[in-house]
């Protein structure tokens, strides 16, 4: 099994490096902008306030004053999260389907490991991938953003929001996996994963914009560990439970569907 993990990590390293590079560049650009934003915080905040609210909500800058280091981190977190979730969906939806896309399924699935074992092993690979993204986000926040802000007081907030981010990544990873077992065509599986991500993002935007339907937050993983809420109230046990249930169901259904379906060869 370790052989599969190492092979998967080796073959997927280029893709992971690209995603890590995108995240790192985003963090660096954000850090470069920090000085300008912090010295003109009031002006920038006025500019943001002048935008239509829907735009502010869509870009994660609604209700953010940008006058504190924490606010600035939360804006950056929004972009980190978008990248990290897109990565998680991409990894999840291609873990299994790429074997069929690349015509290597006939080789892999005639080896003496059950499909269930292979799903689990690939899931481990997926977790390592999303963990690498979460780790980079934490590292860039700690080592690039924090020194600039002189605000070591936001370290606990960075830690807890990164945990929330990682949990949401795991959720999108398992949902992506489910997509790849529901949709047989590999390209469609990946695009279905992204449609799901987009749909949950739009639901999150709608809930936040309306402001009166918070009880619908269970519909979108974007809200399970919402950074602003997590910073104020910590990780919600209810959403933690929901995360566990959805992840477990996604994995369970993926096993059931993938074990019994014809492979596309």
């Amino acid at each position, binding site marked *: 099994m370790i*052989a599969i993990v190492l092979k998967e990590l*080796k073959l997927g390293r280029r893709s992971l490096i690209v995603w890590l590079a995108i995240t790192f560049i985003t963090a660096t650009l954000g850090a470069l902008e920090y000085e300008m934003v912090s010295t003109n915080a009031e002006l920038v905040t006025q500019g943001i306030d002048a935008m239509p609210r829907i735009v502010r909500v869509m870009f994660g800058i609604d209700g953010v004053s940008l006058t504190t280091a924490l606010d600035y981190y939360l804006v950056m977190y929004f972009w980190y999260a978008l990248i990290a979730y897109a990565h998680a969906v991409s990894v999840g939806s291609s873990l299994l389907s790429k074997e069929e896309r690349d015509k290597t399924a006939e080789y892999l*699935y005639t080896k003496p490991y059950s499909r269930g074992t292979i799903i689990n092993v690939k899931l481990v690979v997926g977790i390592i991938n999303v963990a690498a993204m979460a780790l980079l986000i934490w590292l860039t926040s700690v080592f690039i953003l924090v020194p600039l802000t002189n605000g070591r007081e936001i370290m606990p907030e960075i830690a807890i929001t990164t945990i929330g981010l990682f949990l949401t990544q795991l959720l999108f990873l398992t949902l992506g996996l489910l997509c790849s077992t529901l949709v047989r065509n590999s390209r469609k599986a990946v695009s279905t994963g992204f449609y799901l991500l987009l749909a949950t993002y739009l639901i999150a935007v709608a809930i936040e914009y309306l402001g009166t339907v918070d009880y619908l937050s269970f519909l979108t993983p974007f809200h399970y560990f919402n950074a602003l809420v997590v910073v104020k109230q910590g990780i919600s046990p209810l959403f933690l439970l929901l995360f566990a249930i959805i992840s477990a169901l996604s994995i369970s259904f993926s096993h059931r569907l993938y074990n019994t379906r014809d492979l596309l060869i």
Partner: protein
Amino acid sequence: MNAIETAGLSKYYGKNRGIIDINMQVKEGEIFGFIGPNGAGKTTTIRLLLGLIRSTSGEARLFGKPVPAGGGRLYTKIGYVPSEVTYYPEMTGRDLLNYSSGFYEVESKRQVEELTERLQFDPEKNIRTYSHGNLKKLCIIQALMQQPRLVILDEPGSGLDPLIRKELFDILEELNQKGVTIFFSTHVLDEIERICHRVAMIKEGRLLQVGPVDKLPGRDMHIVVMKIAGLQPSKVELARIGEAEEIPAKPEYYRVLSRQPVNMLVANLSQYKLEYLRISDPTLEEIFMELYEPAAKRGQNSYV
């Protein structure tokens, strides 16, 4: 014990026929050929045996155990060579062999070295640089290196040059002498004639015949090729001997497919002034054509 056993095995892809009601037993230690034209259902049958696809109805068993849903430990006993080979292009041949050996508990280094040498394969190159033939060699090595009890090959000779193909069949025969069951599909009949103990013939998803190679229907036929000098026989006269046709490129030559006993056949032929005569047993190719070629097509140029 049967290495392979199917009972009423059927597969439909939606409304399209894959295979229908395949009943077949392959005994342990046999070399079993599975022949049929393209699209007959050979690959579908093999994929069902390997659990890559699920049957619509019926059952397949390997070594007495049902083919497991979703694969599993049973495949430690099986080596598989598909007709089309695709691997991870980022790997070298050696990487793939090392990776493959990680799936098994058997020490395979010696087998890899021996097979690599016999098949004249260079494992140090990148997989994306391999030709179709070299990919096939790599596939054969990785399928055989872990000492399987059953080897399933789908069109094993395709892509290999005649020398390597001969070497492959030598290797398969040697494995069989050690008790390994060989099951392979092909439409190249001399491969079947060369090493198979029994064959199954499949056509349009249905099994036509299963039996020893020398007991196949049509094995009682004789192929007569003759040149008749002087007055040429009528169609009716030749029809008494068998299915006859002129050989277009050779005037006065006839090819006759006859089921008459040899002495009767010779007696009937003796009435003609023969300048050339050859009587031979049919090849599997000819039996194959007899079984598969549409009667209407066979009737063209035919005297009966």
